[in-house]
């Protein structure tokens, strides 16, 4: 009887252990494939002199040159640039909205049924399939908002639309909407972790609620907010599907930022690294020599997102340490 249950334990141990091994192997295979295949794209032919220098040069060229031959060769510069630009704009949009909304929810709103429902709704926004955000962005931002902007400010150019067509600003807005829950959740969590003593201590000194928030509570919440923003950026950098509806294209003749006024062109179509990978991958049959290009671009994207996630983890770690210090005597 006892031996039987012991065997059962052992069986489960083996079973769970092998599943863990399987997961690890899959992740390792993915990283290994993308890593080796991607890097081999940059690795020079045998026999070339100074192979390491050439290797680094190749990486630089890949990052800094535009694609050629209908995306079948060349670099990824416009796609990388586009991704960074739209994510940067998204950050500028989502940070104030998300942080202020979170402050309202946890600091000003009465904690009643209505607030709870609102909070659940926002948290669930994170679970909505991203393509739905794309459709919403196309209808609401591009057609309704963009259309109205055209009627009000660019009527002389109609029927050719200026903002009533997919473009950078709509991409960034859609991304901001998509990542809003991430920022709100992170900020709310950070706010809830500030010990009550600091709040009452601050108010007892004659601070108004706003002064308490800006002088004591928010500075202590910054690491949490930063973590949220970085997670939002990491999520946004990897999104593709919804963006194809609101302004991401396979080839763009111009960059969204250039030297002609107004320098930042919010109405332009942009290229995106994720979509570029999709486009090049779709066009290359098995065994074609374009495949290494796909892996190389994928490697860059993975590196970008992993770096961002690691930064978020490090900041969160710092935050925990700081809190331990704050609460040492409590």
């Amino acid at each position, binding site marked *: 009887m006892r031996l039987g249950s012991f065997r059962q334990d052992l069986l489960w141990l083996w079973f769970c252990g092998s599943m863990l091994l399987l997961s690890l192997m899959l992740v390792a295979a993915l990283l290994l494939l993308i890593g080796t295949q991607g890097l081999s794209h940059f690795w020079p032919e045998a026999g070339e002199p100074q192979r390491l220098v050439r290797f680094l040069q190749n990486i630089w060229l890949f990052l800094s040159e535009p694609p050629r031959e209908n995306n079948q060769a060349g670099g990824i510069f416009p796609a990388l640039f586009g991704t960074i630009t739209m994510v940067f704009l998204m950050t500028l949009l989502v940070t104030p909205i998300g942080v202020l909304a979170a402050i309202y929810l946890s600091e000003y709103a009465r904690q009643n049924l209505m607030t709870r429902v609102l909070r659940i709704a926002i948290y669930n926004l994170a679970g909505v399939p991203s393509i739905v955000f794309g459709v919403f962005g196309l209808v609401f931002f591009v057609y309704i908002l963009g259309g109205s902007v055209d009627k009000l400010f660019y009527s002389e150019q109609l029927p050719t639309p200026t903002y009533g067509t997919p473009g950078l600003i709509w991409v960034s807005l859609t991304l901001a909407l998509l990542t809003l829950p991430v920022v709100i959740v992170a900020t709310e969590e950070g706010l809830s972790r500030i010990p009550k003593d600091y709040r009452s201590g601050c*108010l007892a000194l*004659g601070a108004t609620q706003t002064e308490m928030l800006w002088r004591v509570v928010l500075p*202590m919440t910054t690491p949490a907010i930063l973590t949220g923003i970085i997670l939002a950026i990491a999520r946004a950098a990897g999104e593709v599907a919804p963006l194809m509806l609101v302004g991401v294209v396979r080839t763009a003749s111009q960059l969204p930022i250039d030297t002609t006024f107004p320098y930042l062109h919010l109405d332009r179509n942009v290229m995106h690294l994720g979509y570029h990978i999709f486009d090049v991958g779709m066009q290359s049959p098995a065994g074609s020599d374009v495949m290494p290009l796909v892996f190389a671009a994928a490697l860059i994207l993975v590196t970008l997102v992993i770096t961002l996630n690691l930064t978020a983890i490090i900041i969160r770690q710092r935050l925990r340490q700081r809190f331990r210090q704050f609460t040492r005597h409590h």
Partner: protein
Amino acid sequence: MQPAKIEITDLSLRFGDRTVLEQINLHLPAHQVTAFIGASGCGKSTLLKCINRLNDLNELCHTLGSVYLDGEDIYQKYYDLPELRRRVGMVFQTPNPFPMSIYDNVVFGLRLLGVRKRHKLHEVAERSLRQAALWDEVKDQLNRNANELSGGQQQRLVIARALAVEPDVLMLDEPASALDPISTLKIEELITELKQSYTIVLVTHNMHQAARVSDFTVFLDQGRILETGRTRDLFTNPHHKATEDYITGRYA
């Protein structure tokens, strides 16, 4: 009797359905130390927080009755709460310095008032830290993070922070309960020192402390005032059996 600094009339308070304070009538004389004593959960801390309206933070809290500070009802509508809390300073049970330097902690309240002049801030920081008997220990390390101080030092820092805005009343909610005997002694000496300039309200679990430092004692039992009087009289000649049991440690 001395003129009343604070007058509490017919004060009742409940959190949701739970009544915490009932029919409190009390008068706290100026420049005296009044101690609130009573078993845990009898409402002493809540009564204290009625005087700076910190209970208002709790959405469930509902207050009836009035509290007069220098004759003015602080429970009237649209009363300026930040101003009230500047006049009625409070020190909490656990030291709660803000996560910033010692100096920034002390001048926090002044900066809220918009004081920017360096020499004024310095002057007040030194004066408050001296009043709180902490100056000699920290004068060379004002830029150190306040969290690095010991518990007793932190509590005196918090007292200095409260004194910096020059309140009329200083309320201390079990200020020594988290401290060692030596720090406790320092805080008690400080209280005796401070009553020259401030009206002090003290919540304590420590009967000896109440007997040592307070002039008046209020004994609370289940949200009601059971007995109140000069500390000397109340401790030597309590009128109620319950008071006697409590102060002699036979409270059940």
